[in-house]
């Protein structure tokens, strides 16, 4: 099974910043690609996604569970095999992802939801 690639799709420069943060923490810089919806209509965003995803299996991380990033990503995944989409991307799920990429997109999506949700908590006072 080829290693999954991750694509982060966000408003403004959130995705770019997340890629930089993952690189800063792990040193891994070939697992994630950032896509911004800045200045994009539906067609253009689909084009950016196509360029970013390329061939092979991929995991798409979207910032919000609704909106142009999510609709374009979900539409793209429907038209292409071996792509899963999760929303609510956070740094914790990305850090988990970059170390677990020899799995199917479906499995990676389940891991992402799990790792992402576990990171949201109230800290002790």
């Amino acid at each position: 099974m080829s290693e999954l690639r991750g694509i982060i799709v966000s408003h403004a420069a959130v995705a770019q910043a997340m890629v930089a943060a993952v690189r800063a923490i792990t040193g891994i810089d070939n697992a994630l690609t950032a896509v911004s919806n800045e200045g994009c209509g539906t067609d253009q965003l689909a084009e950016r996604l196509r360029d970013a995803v390329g061939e092979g299996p991929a995991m798409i991380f979207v910032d919000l569970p609704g909106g142009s990033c999510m609709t374009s990503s979900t539409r793209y995944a429907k038209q292409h095999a071996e792509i899963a989409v999760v929303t609510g991307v956070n740094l914790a799920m990305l850090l988990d992802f970059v170390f677990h990429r020899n799995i199917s997109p479906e499995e990676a999506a389940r891991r992402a939801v799990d790792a992402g949700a576990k990171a949201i908590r109230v800290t002790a006072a």
Partner: protein
Amino acid sequence: MTLALYRIDDRLIHGQVVVGWGQPLNASFIVLVDDEVSSSDWEQDLYRMGVPPQIEVIFASVDQAAAQLSTWEADERVGILLVGDIDTAVALAQRAPQVRSFNVGGVHHRTGRRERLRFVYLTDDEAAKLRQLAAGGVEVTAQDVPTARAIPVGEFT
């Protein structure tokens, strides 16, 4: 209340509409007028995902929207009507004289279009259609978010 915003936006339902406009207007329903989306359950589910459960989403073809517009205008709640392109806006305005304004909220780059504003790209034909719409008595302005200035059609076409 009424339909408080008629908007042309090629992203249809997205954050700027639901949050950016929906919150200050206190919108309770969104009417998405698009012949393609209105005939696809899958597309409708996709757009509905971006909307909090307290906001109703109504999908309509241009014909259905023209027939229903008076009902939505008379609704006691505040609503937002969305179309994805200029042709749909023109078609709706032609069939429904109740349409008094259109906000150009996002028409993005595509082959043949030229930048008019950061968030508005138009072909010459589309620009002419917007001017015609305005000449017919519809107030046409460009404004991406409520805090921005509403730019009159003459300044960007």
